[in-house]
Structures are given as structure tokens and as C-alpha cells.
């Protein structure tokens, strides 16, 4: 009986220690934000518009190279409330509230380096309930404010079953330019 409890105690202690070690090393290597900026540009002759959100959630862990970003699409604003509403209908945000990317960095990152480093990440982008494998190019820059991330890619609406809204005689372009900028803070575990 006493043996078992001793084992348990020892095991727990060892586990806790390991956990702390893992957590602290991971913590030093992981960065987060809840206030990143994301924008998309739809370019149609005479009808170009941009939607933006300042509540992009992001996390980059250098320990396991994961890149994780998501935004609640209800926070996107185009400057015209009516258009926002149309956009939410088009994206069916009630059923599919998030646009998200989860993947891995495929290029090494050096936190000691000065200036912006080109990086690329491969992973799954999900919007409108459809997931596709994509590769995103961007830069990482270790600044005094945190880890600055910039990335952009082009999304084709038809790939994600998004029916571009019609405007009288023409349709909104199927190609949507997406860009994100965020400064991630070191994670404190």
C-alpha cells in the first residue's frame, strides 16, 4: 500500500517537473495575439472594396513549428453596414463563424536575426465549412514589441463554395486578396 502511494507521489513529482520544463521551454518559443489585423480586397471595376478586422487571433510556436490563426468573420467590416450583412450572408457566418489556418512553418526561423525573415507555412485553410491545403508566404520579424508577422495570399471563392454576390450586371471577382499583419507577444505559461 505504502509502496503504491510512494510510487504515485514520485511519479506525480516527476511528471510535474517534466511538465514545467516542457511548458517553460514551449513558452519561450511561442507567441500569441488576439488583436491582429486581417484584410481582404475584392477588386471589381468601379466597385473595389476592402473588409477588415482587428481581432485576428494568432499563435506561432517555434517549439513545434505550428502556425495557428483564426478570425471570427462577424468582426469583418467593409464600411457599409448593408454590405457587411450581405457578406455575412454570402459566407453563411451563422453556420461557419470562423476563417482559420492551421499549419506548420516549412522554413527555419532564427529569433536572434535582425530584420524581417522570409518564411513559408503549409497547412489547412478553412472558410465557409470547406478546408483546403495551402502554402502561405510571409515574413517574421523579432521587434521590441514582439514577433511581427506579415503574410498574404489569394483566395479563389469558388474553391470554398462561396458564391460571389451579384451586383446588377456583373459579379464580384472570384479572386480575393487576403493579407494579415500581427504582432505576437511571448506566451506566458
Amino acid at each position, binding site marked *: 500500500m505504502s509502496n503504491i502511494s510512494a510510487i504515485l507521489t514520485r511519479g506525480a513529482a516527476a*511528471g510535474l517537473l517534466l511538465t514545467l520544463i*516542457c511548458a517553460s521551454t514551449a513558452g519561450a518559443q511561442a507567441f500569441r495575439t488576439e488583436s491582429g489585423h486581417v484584410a481582404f480586397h475584392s477588386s471589381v471595376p468601379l466597385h473595389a472594396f476592402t473588409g477588415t478586422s482587428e481581432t485576428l487571433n494568432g499563435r506561432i510556436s517555434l*517549439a513545434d513549428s505550428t502556425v495557428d490563426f483564426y478570425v471570427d468573420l462577424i*468582426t469583418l467590416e467593409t*464600411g*457599409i453596414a*448593408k454590405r457587411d*450583412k450581405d457578406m455575412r450572408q454570402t459566407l453563411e457566418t451563422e453556420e461557419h463563424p470562423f476563417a482559420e489556418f492551421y499549419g506548420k512553418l516549412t522554413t527555419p526561423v532564427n529569433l536572434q536575426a535582425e530584420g524581417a525573415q522570409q518564411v513559408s507555412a503549409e497547412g489547412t485553410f478553412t472558410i465557409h465549412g470547406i478546408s483546403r491545403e495551402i502554402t502561405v508566404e510571409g515574413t517574421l520579424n523579432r521587434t521590441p514589441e514582439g514577433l511581427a508577422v506579415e503574410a498574404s495570399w489569394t483566395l479563389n471563392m469558388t474553391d470554398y463554395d462561396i458564391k460571389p454576390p451579384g*451586383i446588377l450586371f456583373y459579379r464580384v471577382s472570384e479572386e480575393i486578396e487576403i493579407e494579415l499583419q500581427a504582432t505576437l507577444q511571448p506566451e506566458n505559461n
Partner: protein
Amino acid sequence: MRIQTLLLTTILTLLFLPAHAQMERERADIRPPVEEIFWTHGLVATGTVQQVPAGNMNVTIMHSFGVLSNRTLQNFFGLDSPPNVRLGLDFGLTDQWSLGIGRTTFEKVVDLRTQLVLLRQGSDGAPPLSLSLKGDLGVTTVENRRPLSDDLSGTAALMAARSFGDAFSLQISPMVSWFASPLPGNDGTLAGLGVGAEYRLSDRYAFFAEWLPVVGDRFEGAHNAFSVGLDIETGGHVFQLFFSNTQWHTEQYAISHTNTDFWAGDFRFGFNVNRIFQL
């Protein structure tokens, strides 16, 4: 014993390790207000709580023709009569405040108007309705040998509106209108109770109705304005086709100068064009 210890340690370690997979997805804590209680900033004679957003310009072209029932075919459903046209521009200074100017053909009335949001209905039902204040100051610029101060008229309205589900909206607007040069029957201050409703058939079509009964004394011969019409939303413009007994497109004139009775069949055809431009 060794093996057991190792096993336990491993299990416990796994239990304690923070899962560094995806972040938990959390919905943003915002419940936007109901965006479109009405499709347009105004119906036929009265405004709606639909605000012109900041940095946007609302262009309205409103027409109403002659009475349909007066020699219908000879006058081609009233279209041969000169239409009363109000051309208007409204500017959204902020999302809560807009300023507008318009000019009406009849009596060459130029009017300045402003609209202020007090409350916006929340999409989760709190607050339960939208409230706006509207003011309109008109001046008759037709040559009449009167001093300018006698050419003024105005309206102050409180608009309370609620959207019931996605299809139906209702607005009640108590208002007071005033004329510097009243007609017989009233000393120049008129009270009214505007009622506006919109029923959506689809994303493209909606029916609307508007009723503006006078409360208390009225100018001699004035009838309550009533209109019924169809909104056509094209993705840029909103067209409004309507039948109405009023030929006026500002509150103070509709409440005082509507001279035919809708229910006696003396109504007109009219149409409005609405378009919002981002400046």
C-alpha cells in the same frame, strides 16, 4: 516496481502536459445591431430610422405624378401631369448623425434635414428597438412677395422602429410640423403620427406602406397621406414604385397639403430612386 514507476510517470506526464495543438476557437463578443430595419432612408413622405453611414452619401430622386382617376387614359394614368420631384442628398457625418438637403418642384421648396440616432436595435434583442430624431426645415423659394420668415416650415419627428424577424419591420413616428404661413383651419402647428411598415418577400423585393394621420386640427381640405408600394433592391440601387394620395415628399407638406382621399380612389403613381455612394 521500476516498470510501474516509469509507466505511472509517463502517464502522469502526459496528463499534465499542456496540449499544444490548436488554440480554442472563441466567438468574438460582439452582437452587431440590426443592419437594415428598412431598405431606404425614407419612404414616400416620411423618413425611416435607416441611417446613412459615416462617409456615405445618399442620393434620392422622388417623383409623384397626377391623380390616376382623373381622366385616366386621357392623362395616361396621371403621367401627363407635371410630377412633383424632390431631389435630395444626405451625408453621413458619423454613423449616428446625417445632414441632408433637398429641393422639391412644387412651391420650389428647399429643405435642410438632419437625423440623429438615439438607439439601435440589437440583433440579440437588446435594445429591442431603434430610435432616431429627425428635423426638417423647409423654405419656399417661389416668388411670393413675402419676407423669408413667412416662407418657413418645419418638422420634428421621433422615429421608433423595430424589425420583427427578417421579414417585417414597423415604425411609429410621432411628429410636430409647423408653418409660418398657415392655411385656414389650423394656427400653423400640426401634429401627426406616422406609421411605416416593410414586409420583405425576398432579398430583392419588399412591400411597404406608410400612413400619416393628422392628430387634432388640420388645414382645410387636407387628407391623411397613405402610400403603398414595392421596394426593388438591385444590389446598388433601391427603386420604390408606389401609389399614394400625397404628392409631397417631406413630412410637413404631406401632413398639410395632401388634397385627395386615397380611399376614394384618388391616388397617384410615383417612384423613387435611392442610391448610396461611399465618398
